[in-house]
């Protein structure tokens, strides 16, 4: 059986892993290669690197850190942030990343999804979706890096999920914005609703605070993987312990 995936997400700025609030006051918390090796050793199933600087500043930065990651770990990894065209995607993939994840560029230019899928294969193309519940509807937002730039794209989340998969997305990461950073658990209701229409792998993002949250999201929304950042970086949960717990709970994960 295909196992459920546990996916740590690392924010990278200028080749360093950073942590900050709302893209401000970034504090360097480590070297991406060391952290990647640590998570890989703990049996993380894959890693996501979010290149903050490229995304916000729309500048071209050195991608050599991607190459170093590829040289040092042998589990799959995805790079997100600032990938706006085929050329940039190609650079990232040829540096050794297995997948690229695009969010705002897919909103601004949906054709990019099909171009990427056609050029590299759907399995390389992950679409990140920032979804906000306004107490009536689930609405897609873009440029969520700061409150100033953030805007509603005018599509509800279900429709956008259908559209991106029709265009060739190979995986969807659904970031449930209302839960982001709150650590009260994944948005099960929303994920279960999206699961109904999502025929490609679906990854839950936003809200992980304790081990039980992972159990619940796998059991109740049937997602393929769960992404989390701070609970792993702050050593609140170790991936090895999380996986032992999930196995005890009869959820199949790789140990």
């Amino acid at each position, binding site marked *: 059986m*295909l196992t459920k995936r546990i996916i740590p997400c690392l924010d990278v700025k200028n080749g360093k892993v950073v942590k900050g609030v709302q893209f401000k006051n970034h504090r360097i918390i480590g070297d991406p290669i060391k952290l990647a090796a640590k998570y890989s050793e703990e049996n993380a199933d894959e890693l996501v690197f979010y290149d903050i600087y490229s995304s916000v500043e729309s500048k071209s930065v050195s991608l050599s850190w991607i190459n170093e990651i590829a040289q040092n770990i*042998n589990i*799959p990894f995805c790079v997100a942030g600032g990938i706006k065209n085929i050329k940039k995607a190609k650079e990232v993939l040829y540096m050794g990343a*297995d997948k690229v994840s695009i969010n705002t560029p897919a909103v601004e230019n949906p054709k990019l999804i099909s171009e990427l899928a056609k050029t*590299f294969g759907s*399995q*390389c193309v992950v679409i990140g979706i920032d979804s906000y519940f306004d107490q009536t509807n689930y609405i897609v937002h873009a440029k969520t890096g700061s409150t100033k730039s953030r805007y509603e794209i005018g599509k509800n989340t279900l429709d956008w999920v259908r559209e991106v998969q029709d265009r060739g997305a190979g*995986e969807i990461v659904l970031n449930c914005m209302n839960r982001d950073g709150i650590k009260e658990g994944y948005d099960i209701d929303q994920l279960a609703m999206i699961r109904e229409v999502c025929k490609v*792998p679906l990854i839950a993002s936003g809200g992980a605070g304790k081990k039980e949250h992972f159990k619940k999201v796998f059991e109740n929304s049937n997602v393929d993987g769960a992404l989390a950042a701070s609970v792993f970086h702050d050593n609140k949960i170790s991936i090895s312990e999380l996986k032992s717990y999930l196995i005890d709970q009869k959820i199949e994960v790789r140990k």
Partner: protein
Amino acid sequence: MIAVIDCGGANLRSVSYALEYLNIKYQICINKEQIKNSNGIIIPGVGAAKNVMNNLKKYDFINTIKEYKKPVLGICVGMQIFYEFSEEENEKCLGLIPGKIKKFSNNNLTIPHMGWNKVIFNDDSFDECNGYYYFANSYYADVNKYTFGKCTYGSTFSAFVRKDNFFGVQFHPEKSSKNGSKFLMQFLKQL
């Protein structure tokens, strides 16, 4: 020296790094002379069968590979092209192994088949390799008499095939952590 064929796929680098990690000498090959001097071939494949076949044609590698007598390892789409035909863009392949490559068609499955799945080997040389491997495929080969490693996703399909000197894996050993290294070492022992 292992000849790693440049198939134009994005995993060329990952395969190279996996070999470096294991201290194996390799060369990325774009001409036939390089292949003739090698002890074995690895065909990394990502994308579609058509891409891989087009690259093999571009370098005029088709007959060189078919006539090669030392071990050959095809990875993912690199394995799929060993078959006669791929339903992906209706591509005629090398025809080294009978059968065709089909798309997962069960409506209850998410596709691509992406992530870690269990492989059970049935081959004396690879019996120690049972475990989880990383997959990223929408197309697969049915089990036939050349299947020596199976995986289940909806139904059971070929994860490891072997005919004469041709070895193929649907999973990505270069991305499969310790199990992947173990598998590659077992393959390299066949050289």
